[in-house]
Each structure stands twice: as structure tokens, then as C-alpha cells.
């Protein structure tokens, strides 16, 4: 995940990614680094080169356009995380919307504007935790995946594979699902995950490992489409 657009990971604020850390501490594979800039280009925004910090400063001064640019940079990443955590497109969009509103109202508390993405993601994680308690078993992942068939032109085999993954993911306890997604899907290292979740690194390692073991077990007889 490229929260700091000038660097390649959240941890890079303290040094280059993974520097001084064991190989296994680094995200297993980097997120597509072009995703955010691609979003910005696609949106035709003239502020593509503007840093998050500069945009945060302008947004604090009441410039909603600057905040819109920040939203365009992070909406899809937040949305994907919320969708996998909450299991429904509707709930994910509500969570993203709410997180953006909360973030805007709390911009004064963003003490490191250059790490706006990490700060915003913390709001998102907490928002999902709250929603998780409220939603409980109301996961509608499968229906939402079905809705995507026409839009993506996926084969039925790949849709089935996605449904199996959604079902398996839904079986994980929320803390394990959270750790697995942050580690492997968002590509965070354990130090950053610890800052973001408030859990200790050994606990997070355990959650990731057990989540992986569980997913592997649940999906062992299912073949990718």
C-alpha cells in the first residue's frame, strides 16, 4: 500500500522500506505502486504531483477540492479493505463515506500530514471494527460478487473461486481477517500493523499465521478459476 505517495510503504517514514529489518518483516510482495497515481491520472486532476501534505494543508484551510483529491487517491484502497472486512458493497461504501467525513472533521489532529494515508487508514480500521460488531453475521459478499459478473466479464469458474474465498474469509474471526488483509492484501509490515491496530507484533504474527492456515484449510479442495 502506498500511503506515502513519495515512498513505497508506511514504514518508509522511518527509513527505506524494510531497511534494518528481517526479510520476513517486509510485506510479502509490494502493492502495485502505480495504483494511486493511476487513479489520479484517470480522474484528470491537475494536482497529481501535489503531495498529500500540501493537500492536507489546503484542506485544513477549507479547500474542499484538495480534500476531493485526497479522497480520489485513497477511496479504492479503503473500499477494498472495507469490502473484505464487512462483506458487503453497501456497508463498505458507507464505511468509506463515513471515514472520509470523520477524517475531514479531524484534519487538525493529523499530526503528520505526509502520512495522511496511514492516518486515514487507522480511521478506516476503527470504523470497520465498530461496524463489525453492529453487522455481526450480516455478510452479503456472495450476492455482491454475483453482481460483478456482468461488469467484469469473469468466467463462472473465477466467480466461484471468488465466492469460495469470500466464504472462507467470512469464517475468520474479525481480528484474524483484519490482520491477514493488512499484511497480505494491503502489504503492511508488522511494525506498521502494530501502530495501526494497537496489537503487539507477536500477536499480529500469530493472527496472520492462523488466518493463513485456516484459509488454506478451507480452500484446499477448491481450485482457482
Amino acid at each position, binding site marked *: 500500500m502506498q500511503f506515502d505517495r513519495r515512498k513505497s510503504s508506511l514504514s518508509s517514514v522511518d527509513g527505506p522500506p524494510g531497511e534494518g529489518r528481517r526479510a520476513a518483516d517486509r510485506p510479502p510482495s509490494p502493492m502495485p505502486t502505480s495504483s494511486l497515481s493511476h487513479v489520479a491520472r484517470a480522474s484528470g486532476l491537475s494536482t497529481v504531483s501535489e503531495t498529500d501534505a500540501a493537500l492536507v494543508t489546503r484542506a485544513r484551510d477549507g479547500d474542499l477540492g484538495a480534500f476531493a483529491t485526497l479522497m480520489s487517491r485513497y477511496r479504492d484502497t479503503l473500499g477494498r479493505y472495507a469490502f473484505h472486512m464487512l462483506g458487503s458493497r453497501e456497508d463498505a461504501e458507507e464505511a468509506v*463515506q463515513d471515514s472520509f467525513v470523520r477524517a475531514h472533521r479531524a484534519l487538525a489532529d493529523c499530526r503528520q500530514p505526509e502520512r495522511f494515508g496511514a492516518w486515514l487508514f487507522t480511521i478506516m480500521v476503527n470504523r470497520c471494527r465498530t461496524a463489525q460488531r453492529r453487522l455481526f453475521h450480516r455478510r452479503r459478499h456472495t450476492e455482491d460478487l454475483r453482481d460483478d459478473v456482468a461488469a467484469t466479464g469473469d468466467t463462472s469458474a473465477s466467480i466461484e473461486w471468488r465466492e469460495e*474465498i469470500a466464504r472462507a474469509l467470512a469464517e475468520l474471526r474479525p481480528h484474524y481477517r483484519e490482520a491477514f488483509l493488512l499484511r497480505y492484501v494491503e502489504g503492511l509490515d508488522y511494525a506498521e500493523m502494530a501502530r495501526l491496530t494497537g496489537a503487539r507484533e507477536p*500477536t499480529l504474527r500469530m493472527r496472520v499465521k492462523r488466518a493463513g492456515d485456516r484459509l488454506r484449510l478451507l480452500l484446499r479442495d477448491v481450485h482457482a478459476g
Partner: protein
Amino acid sequence: MRVDPDDAPDGTLERVIAELRRPMRLDPALDQRVLEVLRRDPIAPGPGIDSRARRFRARWIAGVATGALAAGLLVAVLRPEPGTTRPIELRLSAPASQVVVVGDFNDWDPDATPLRPGNEGGTWRVELRLPPGRYRYTFLVDGRRWVPDPAEPRAADDDFGAPTSVLTVS
């Protein structure tokens, strides 16, 4: 403590992760909805608002904490011997340099409950105090080997692929 020296995902997980990383398309109108909310409710994002909120929250939390403390003291005075926990000793005989127990009672935290080596060679033990209930747990030997408790029944479905025991405290 390291659980696994290398948590790089294998083939199955790699395919799962690739799937989960697919871009998520949100409603294109979402940003506009957010901006509408912000325009309708223009709380200036300047300094002070959240600080004030935080101070209020801090005072509120302090008040609640004080009340809870007072209530706790009252309960402790009225019920000095609540008897809600039971002493439990877990043991494992295994050649190892480190043994920990992880389970429902410690949020599966591998740092929370290490066993100490006993006098007899190879026997590790730890004492816990647990409220009555049913707990799933397993031993983690040298940070990488899951070992169920031979003294307790196995869980019908091993949790997360690891052999798991069930302890019932009555």
C-alpha cells in the same frame, strides 16, 4: 517471538491474495456524497475542535473511570471472595527450548503465557487462574510446532488447522 521464520505465502494463499487484491470499484458518486455532507455541515477543520472534543472525552472518561473504580471497590468489599476463577495447571512433556500456550484465554497471544521447565527433565508447566468455561488452546513448541494437550480432549474441529485441545473449567 517469531511464530514462523518466513511467513511468505504458499501457492494457495498466493492465489487467494491475488484475488483479494483485485481493485474494488466503489460508487463513482461516493466522493460527491461526502462533499455534500461536508458542505452541508461545514465544521471547519481548523485546530481546536477535536482537541476540545478530546478534552471533553478525557473528562468524561475520567468521570466514568472514577465511578467504575468506586463501584469496583464497593463490590470488592462486599464480595471479598468472589470465587470466580479456578487454578489450572497445564503441563507438557516435550524436548524443547521454549514452550508457550495460546488459547481463548489469552487471545492466542504467543507472548502472554510461557511455560517454565519443571524439575523433571522435559516437563514444562504453567499455572493459570481461569473463570469457569470452555477454552480451546494448544501448545506452541519452539515457536513453530503445534502440540495439543495430551491430558485434555481434542477439539472436534482443529482450530485454524492447528491441533487444538479443549479445557473445561467448572
